């Protein structure tokens, strides 16, 4: 037993993976409104064991990126592993409170969450992972990661999700852990402002052509696209799906100014104008998660600022307060999935920074300060935000944990803009509870 303890290599926990990418765990350029006390997060260890090595690595990284745990890393041990039972005492001595076990069981894998203090299994699930080289393998592991986060915190993680963004002029997609970058549109077309449908099956985006732009709806399964009716004339962009996926609100610039419209995409009909700008512009709609309200940008008071209205266009009012002449212009609101906050970017001393508006208190706090930071988009957990930042020298995607300020770069091949984060992908075949 002592021999086995010696074989365990304790690698200092949280931030280790991020450090390998030369990214400090908490960036100097991130301000968080709350005190972060290291060690307040429970320490979690993914047990080494036979088989499932690639799943274990993905799982470990997902749980680290969830920012809900401090990961305790133990090295592989080729021998001395107990064939049955978990040595709770050993892992407790490493300071871990939770342990994740992947145990092969025939063609399936049993995933167990151990409560090390109580010395018992707290939750478990049996899953048949697709083969590691199958395209759906990583997503299946991500879904297990999210489930483990839910077992501990009550709220699922965000690993089983993807982001779309504009790189050069094309539409790209990437997994939340930065793996699997691929382009969805050809090099000969210019796309703008992609948006996910809530079910993760469609992406609305603008096909930009010589100063005009139509809204396209891409069906990811087939790769086919349809043009949203009434969007061939003028410039139609910055679309947002309603949470039930049936309505698309979007911005239209044409003769007479820039205003927000909505169209029923179930029936592809019934165009409705939600704002009447006259000499002011109204743009960039985002739905509240209950679908009843829309936050947007308006220049009605002069500088662009964040407003809110009912989803039918009534009851328009200021949402993020500002001091006229002092507060910088504000753009790109995104309502959080839990409905509690709206992220946006605002000019501070001529540079964009990401802000969070707490809807209960109507208070804003600045989330970033290094470089130019813009176009925030929420992770499905309502806690992480991806945004475009120049902190590394060019426009790249970064993900920040809004609670701890821990930040990491999401690897993309090119300069990036206009990201949109999907909701969580659920329901993998072969998952049994």
């Amino acid at each position, binding site marked *: 037993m002592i021999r086995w303890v010696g074989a365990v290599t304790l690698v200092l926990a949280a931030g280790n993976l991020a450090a390998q990418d030369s990214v400090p765990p908490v960036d100097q350029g991130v301000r968080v409104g709350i005190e972060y006390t290291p060690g307040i997060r429970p320490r979690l260890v993914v047990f080494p064991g036979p088989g499932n090595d690639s799943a274990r690595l993905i799982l470990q990284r997902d749980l680290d990126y969830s920012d809900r745990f401090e990961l305790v890393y133990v090295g592989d041990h080729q021998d001395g592993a107990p064939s049955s039972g978990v040595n709770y005492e050993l892992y407790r001595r490493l300071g871990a409170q939770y342990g994740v076990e992947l145990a092969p069981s025939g063609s399936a894998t049993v995933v167990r969450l151990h409560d090390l203090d109580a010395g018992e299994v707290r939750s478990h699930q049996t899953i048949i992972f697709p083969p590691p080289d199958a395209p759906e393998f990583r997503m299946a592991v991500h879904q297990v990661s999210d489930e483990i986060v839910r077992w501990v915190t009550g709220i699922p993680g965000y690993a089983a999700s993807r982001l779309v963004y504009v790189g050069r002029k094309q539409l790209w997609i990437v997994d939340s852990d930065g793996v699997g970058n691929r382009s969805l549109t050809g090099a000969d077309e*210019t796309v*703008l*402002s992609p948006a996910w449908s809530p079910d993760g099956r469609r992406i609305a985006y603008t096909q*930009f052509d*010589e*100063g*005009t*732009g139509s809204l396209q709806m891409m069906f990811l399964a087939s790769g086919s696209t349809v043009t949203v009716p009434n969007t061939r004339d003028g*410039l139609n*962009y*910055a679309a947002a799906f309603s949470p039930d996926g049936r309505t698309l609100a979007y*911005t239209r*610039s*044409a*003769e*007479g*100014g*820039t205003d927000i419209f909505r169209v029923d995409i179930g029936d592809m009909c019934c165009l409705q104008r939600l704002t009447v700008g006259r000499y002011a*512009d109204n*743009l*960039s709609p985002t739905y509240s998660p209950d679908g009843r309200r829309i936050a947007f*940008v308006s*220049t009605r008071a002069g*500088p*662009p600022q964040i407003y809110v209205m009912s989803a039918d266009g009534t009851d328009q009012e200021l949402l993020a307060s500002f001091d006229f002449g002092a507060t910088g*212009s504000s*753009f*790109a609101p995104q309502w959080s999935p839990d409905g509690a906050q709206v992220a946006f*970017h605002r*000019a501070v001393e*001529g540079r*964009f920074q990401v802000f969070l508006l707490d809807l209960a208190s109507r208070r804003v706090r600045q989330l970033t300060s290094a470089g130019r930071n*813009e*176009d925030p988009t929420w992770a499905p957990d309502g806690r992480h935000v991806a945004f475009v930042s120049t902190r590394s020298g060019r426009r790249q995607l970064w993900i920040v944990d809004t609670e701890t300020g821990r930040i990491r770069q999401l690897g993309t091949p090119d300069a990036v*803009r*206009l990201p949109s984060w999907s909701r969580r992908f659920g329901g993998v075949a072969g998952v049994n509870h």
Partner: protein
Amino acid sequence: MRRKFFVLAAGALVAAACGGSQPEPETPEPVAIDSTAIKEQMRRDSIAAAERSRAEAERRAAEQRALAAAAALTTQLTSELQDMINFDFDRSDIRMDDEANLDRKAGVMMANSAVRLRISGHADERGSDEYNLALGNRRAESAKRYLVNKGVNASRINIVSYGEERPLDPAMNEDAWAKNRRDEFELTAGAGQLVAPR
């Protein structure tokens, strides 16, 4: 008797002209060559011909000059129509120093009813990508409204916006941004030959 004499005289003349030698039936030397009147006629004819061709050349030259002048005028008026205008940061109102530029455009459009314009508004890279599309649209609209207020029919102008998608200067400094905040004007019809406004 008298007739006989005449015939004889003519015969003598012919004989004299032929030099009395027998076998040459060649065409006779033109008699007119010695004629002062004919010479005079020829001189006049040649002068007239020369004058005609000089007039023709002059006409052609004048035509060329007129064509060249028209082409130069068209080029000048086209470039006046295409002259960009610029904007202050996050503004879409026409600057005082661009009013003369737009006044010239209005004049040319009023004098050339076939001309149609496409105004594209552009923004610098500050401002969100989406907001800049709206701002570009407002800038294009602003120039259109100015021209329409000067009497140009609104249906002759259409507007588009490129936002920050087509910077003239990709640098990230004030000079570049100032250049990039602009309206561009493109002739979409009636570009053939333009006449000057009266």
